[in-house]
């Protein structure tokens, strides 16, 4: 397993696949993210591929404050992704809820719903920043971190389950 995980980590570092999800953003961060796919920035040239299906993706790029209607969908997408998986919260709204914090249909930042690995503030973020965030994430993704990450993922799942059990009991 150790070798396999190393292999996965090594492979992910070379070519991570990303999926983009708008949890209730104003579109500003979304168009800037799409911009990073197009010729001027072109993250595909460094091996980063955007993909439509969460099951194939390694990194979830999530924009916008989480609205009540998208919350379940966001959790669903996160659960569908194969581990090890990473989440980048793109934009101020995704980090903290930003200007929409306190609106009646807004939960807050992405971390109110799913665990976040990289916070990328900015309104709207620039495409360079998106590339930098992915780069930072990959560089922190060495073998030790991967192990820790996998462990903490498991722990999170366990703790979530236990929480659910507790709430059921209550």
């Amino acid at each position, binding site marked *: 397993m150790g070798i396999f995980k190393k292999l996965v980590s090594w492979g992910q570092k070379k070519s991570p696949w990303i999926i983009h999800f708008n949890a209730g*953003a*104003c579109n500003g961060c979304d168009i800037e993210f799409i911009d990073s796919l197009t*010729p001027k920035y072109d993250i595909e040239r460094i091996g980063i591929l955007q993909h439509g*299906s969460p099951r194939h993706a390694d990194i979830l790029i999530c924009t916008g404050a989480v*609205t009540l*209607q998208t919350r379940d969908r966001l959790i669903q997408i996160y659960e569908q992704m194969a581990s090890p998986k990473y989440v980048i919260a793109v934009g101020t709204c995704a980090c903290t809820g930003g*200007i929409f914090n306190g*609106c009646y249909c807004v939960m807050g930042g992405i971390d109110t719903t799913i665990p976040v690995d990289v916070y990328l503030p900015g309104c709207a973020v620039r495409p360079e920043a998106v590339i930098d965030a992915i780069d930072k994430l990959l560089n922190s993704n060495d073998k030790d971190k991967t192990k820790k990450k996998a462990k903490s993922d498991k722990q999170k799942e366990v703790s979530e389950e236990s929480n659910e059990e507790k709430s059921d009991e209550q």
Partner: protein
Amino acid sequence: MSDNSSNRIVIPLGPQHPALKEPGSFTLTLEGEKVVNAVIGIGYNHRGLEKALESRTYIQNLYMIERICGICSHTHSVAYCQAIEEMCGVEIPMRAKYIRVIIAELERLHSHLLWLGVAAHEIGFDTLFMYAWRDREMVLDMLAELCGNRVNYGINTLGGVRRDIDDNDAHEIKKILRVLHNQISYYLELATNEPTLIARLADVGKLNHDDALKFGAVGPVARAAGIANDVRKIEPYAAYDEVPVNVITDDHGDVLGRTLVRVKEMLESISIIRYCLDNLPAGEILAKVPRKVPAGEMISRTEAPRGENIHYINSDGSDIPYRIRVRAPSEANWHGMKHMLEGSFLADVPIAIAAIDPCYSCTDRAIFVNSDNGESRLYDWKGLREYSIKWHRDRGLNIADIQIPMAKNYIQIQRKTND
């Protein structure tokens, strides 16, 4: 009829179109490959913004209003500002009005180029998608130079604008506009002469003149159906009463018409920006607006890149608005959408939806449910798009094979600009 109805397939498409401003769900009923019924639902991105506007001061709201939409943020803030300026009886300086027009037209350029790319992507013409988005970067560079930000420019404030344009900026912008003009003329040539593109876009998503009037279509959708509906001409706001504006109309009434209208509008925008830069009046850029707005109500409208944008503002005399209601242009175009989808082929659905400019990349799944045996298949938007491209390829339309060269002199001009 009974045979047909047993073959009917219901497709829920959406509800989340994650890249949209207004995500919508489409439930399509099919007979064979034809859509016979379309039900559209929206509201998945409801954040409760209008309630939040009622708890913030007018100047705080300005920043919130800009974030209604990241693509057409300027047009919303113009509509909001001019309503409040009128309620306060403040006449803003002419130079500020001209700067508002320049930014508005730059925004139109970026939005239409964005749309052109997305529409090209939906029909499988990715070369044009990349070209259009590359050219869009030039517009964003100009916006960043003038406003300091690429999206959500923050240039408007109550009483005028926050940044001035100096001669050096004007000179730089004119240089970039030359390259852009060259590129857009080339797209126009492509859209009017390339037979494959015309065959793919013509007669798709039809909305004729009468229907467009009936469903209250706005913006390029209405203008492509021959209705000269343009707020810049009907009710000139900012400096549009002094700037020559030609309303572009087209009588195709389909996606081809909408493409032509948008591409021609980009050329028109460039000439408006040039006129404004040449005739920029001297003087102040900011007038003083009181913190408290007199009691009353105001309906203000602007021409967003997607159409008519209406703001209603009700003040009770305090520094916090009593009620603000925003009618975004896409809200008006949803109604015609149903009519456009019904009777069209499933393969044309992505481009028909994209043609009113509500969305461009949807990572959500569509569930195909066969009502006969309850069999269901999962498709995401990408799958539907691929199905659509394949469907047309089987019928001899291969968009991906179009070889388009770079516009002539593109590299030379860009080199000159860089020098």
